[in-house]
């Protein structure tokens, strides 16, 4: 569905003073690559598809050119070029040097008796590994090869130029500086020979830090050369900048998300919809004060918990909260900002989506998680509150149970369930399970909620009908009285339920005590259930890595759940 949507740019926290962070267009423009990045990608693709996929440095000295050729064609390098599935990894030569005495350890000194040995440094972008080799150009032999994971050699000049180009063409940097810089301004005097390396400890990508000096301040940027994009920027005082920057990819991302979306509420006004949204400490992306036209619809909605169970017997699993990355009680955190996207049915724009992802570092490797929260707002007044697990978790026997909390506006609410005898009003707090025996109204509603005499919504749970890959919600619905004097989840709720209960005890039952509903203010709690699947062709709540253009990408199979609310005449 995401492909059918186009992005609305979100601008936030554009940097204007020292130590502030700035992001904006660049984050959202990363998927719309500029021409020079596309050209670079074309070069990479050509090389990966050639018979000798290692990108060479092509030094002018014939002996050095020979040295890198010997390494690129050697059997020793083969395991670093193809992965276990035979896919080609992106490997490039970063440097060729005359071997120094210090490069020749005692055991190989005899293999480099004269000046015919060269040191060739390579980098594997796919597995973030530096490969250092010693080559004898006389015997045409690779006499030594060492690989060090999570290490990068100094970058060659073409990558330095590319990093600077990405930085100087960035709208974020232009906006922060107040002018469009040129490439000669992208280095500090003390770092002319090479860009300062910078940490991309979260993505484990090759990153460098072009820097722009402006008076007594320096604007540092982090450029990701694996994905060829700007990661973020930060102002520092020049004195501080002479050392290596005290920030990393993770610090920049965490501080940006915290500054712009955890500590600030944002607003969306689109079509007839108006709402606020904010990332919470542990309740995901919360929407509040939701209005459609002149009607108040929701006080708030949020995602309280994710319960993940791996066994029906020994109770092993996790109870995860999603939320802010810095000072929070979230176990899976927001790294990217919320997105506002257009919602299409066929070619027709029918509304918009507010979406937020939460990641564990290392996803999609085993025991790492990725959750998506998605609010859909239709032009005709419908809205859907949904979420998905995007795998991969700790096994192929996982059961996911997200717990939503939905508080409607208005003081006079009634809740009905569709039964064999028609609509049955709930008079007291209780819960109900959607299962094979559930009876739906002709409109596919299981419930309906009335906010007043004029405003009512049918509640349509997922049965696989929403064209998002979802296979049904199997949800518990709990209805409780909203108390003004008691906080039952209006503010941030820390984990409310354990990982592995297989019944109604997912947390909201704590607030269900048969209290009369009295046509007052209500809270709906909705806990769906999905079982993951890793079987080829049937993947669900699952993700797996694959090599594309020499670097690992992720193929994901989200399992969306969540009810649609449809206004009734």
């Amino acid at each position, binding site marked *: 569905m995401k492909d059918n949507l186009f992005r609305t740019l979100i601008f936030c926290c554009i940097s204007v003073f020292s130590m502030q962070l700035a992001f904006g267009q660049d984050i959202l423009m990363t998927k719309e690559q500029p021409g020079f990045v596309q050209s670079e990608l074309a070069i990479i693709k050509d090389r990966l598809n050639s018979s000798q996929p290692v990108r060479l440095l092509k030094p002018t000295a014939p002996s050095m050119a020979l040295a890198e050729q010997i390494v690129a064609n050697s059997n020793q390098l083969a395991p670093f070029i193809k992965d276990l599935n035979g896919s080609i990894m992106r490997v490039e030569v970063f440097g060729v040097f005359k071997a120094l005495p210090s490069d020749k350890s005692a055991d190989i000194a005899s293999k480099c008796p004269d000046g015919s040995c060269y040191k060739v440094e390579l980098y594997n972008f796919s597995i973030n590994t530096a490969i250092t080799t010693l080559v004898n150009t006389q015997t045409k032999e690779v006499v030594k090869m060492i690989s060090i994971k999570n290490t990068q050699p100094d970058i060659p000049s073409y990558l330095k130029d590319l990093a600077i180009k990405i930085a100087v063409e960035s709208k974020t940097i232009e906006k922060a500086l107040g002018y469009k810089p040129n490439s000669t301004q992208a280095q500090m005097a003390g770092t002319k020979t090479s860009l300062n390396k910078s*940490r991309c400890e979260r993505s484990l990508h090759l990153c460098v830090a072009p820097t722009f000096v402006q008076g007594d301040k320096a604007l540092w940027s982090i450029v990701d050369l694996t994905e060829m994009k700007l990661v973020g920027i930060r102002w520092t005082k020049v004195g501080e900048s002479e050392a290596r920057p005290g920030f990393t990819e993770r610090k920049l991302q965490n501080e940006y998300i915290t500054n712009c979306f955890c500590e600030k509420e944002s607003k969306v006004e689109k079509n007839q919809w108006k709402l606020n949204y904010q990332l919470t400490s542990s309740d995901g992306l919360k929407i509040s004060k939701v209005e459609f036209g002149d009607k108040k619809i929701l006080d708030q909605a949020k995602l309280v918990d994710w319960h993940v169970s791996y066994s029906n017997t020994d109770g092993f699993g996790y*109870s995860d909260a999603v939320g802010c990355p810095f000072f929070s009680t979230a176990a899976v955190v927001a790294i990217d900002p919320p997105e506002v996207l257009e919602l299409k049915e066929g070619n027709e724009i029918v509304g918009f989506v507010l979406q937020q992802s939460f990641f564990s570092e290392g996803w999609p490797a085993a025991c790492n998680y990725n959750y998506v929260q998605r609010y859909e707002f239709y032009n005709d007044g419908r809205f859907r509150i949904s979420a998905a697990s995007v795998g991969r978790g700790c096994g192929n026997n996982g059961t996911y149970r997200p717990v939503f909390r939905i508080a409607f506006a208005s003081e006079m609410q009634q809740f009905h369930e569709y039964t064999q005898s028609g609509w049955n009003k709930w008079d007291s707090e209780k819960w109900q399970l959607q299962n094979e025996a559930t009876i739906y109204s002709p409109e596919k509603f299981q419930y309906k909620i009335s906010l007043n005499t004029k405003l009512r919504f049918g509640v349509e749970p997922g049965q696989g009908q929403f064209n998002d890959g979802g296979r049904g919600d199997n949800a518990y619905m709990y209805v409780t009285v909203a108390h003004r004097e008691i906080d039952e989840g209006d503010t941030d709720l820390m984990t409310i339920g354990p990982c592995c209960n297989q019944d109604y005890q997912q947390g909201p039952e704590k607030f269900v005590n048969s209290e009369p509903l009295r046509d007052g203010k209500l809270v709906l709690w909705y806990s769906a259930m999905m079982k993951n699947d890793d079987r080829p062709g049937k993947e669900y709540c699952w993700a797996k890595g694959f090599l594309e253009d020499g670097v690992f990408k992720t193929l994901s199979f989200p399992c969306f759940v969540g009810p649609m609310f449809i206004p009734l005449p």
Partner: protein
Amino acid sequence: MIRCILLFEILIFSTNTINGQVISISDCKKQSPFLSVNNLDVSKGAFSTSERRLLGLVYLQYDEKQTAIVGYIQHPTWKMAGSLGPIVVDDKGAVWVAPIPTINVLHNNPQKQNRIYVVDEITGVMSLAAELPGSALPNENNPFGVMGLSYDCENRVLFASSIRGSSRSEVRGRIFSLELKDSSLTILDTLSGIDAMGLGVVKMDGIKRLFYGDARSGNIYSVQVDVQSKFILPARLECSLQNLGLRGDDIPRKIRFQGPDKMIVHGVEFYFNLIGPQEKQESLYTFKLKENKWVFDNVN
């Protein structure tokens, strides 16, 4: 290496000099007598609070090669405080631990995280030893309390760090100096306004210093400790984990000293949240004392 020296030179925290030898005074642990009663092979055993499927404290038994876990014991009381973090074994064999929530707070009520528990060396029963005062109550963004422990064998004093009540904008953590008497703790002194994680107590040139790792910056500071186990300010910056190692943003979780000139710092990712990576992202940073400065040596 450059970073550590650089910080030392740029930031003027103190004019104290470091000369001579470093003597660890926190490693005097005695085998807990209750382990012998249980017929355990203590030469192949260890306490742990970081077993993924086991809540609380456990005593693990390893195989002959000491590489695989073959069993464990856990007294029923060892789960009483939920998920735990630092462990210190004292010179009588009592085991001191503190709670740290992992992944969620289901077993770790944020109101009860500023506590220290002790396992009696004879009975093996865990009980509450101290509820430390915080300068602020826990808040919805910070469920943590005590983060680090270190034991001063000379004075039988336990040092504890806490970040209870701190927020992104306010540093409200404390470091406590606590006297051990039987199975209880008495506060001797408190340092306020410090969010510290790992602690390590040491003697340098006969002067006792408590090293602590800043939970926000990755810097390692030290403060002098007098004969009454009270802190003597100012603290001084010793070195930093900033930009070192694989990640570059590690925080010192644990600090220990080895031999006459070596400091080993266990560094982890920490952003005051509850992420729980499957593979523990921890690196061991070694610093060596050279020309009165702690110089980065290597990382594993």
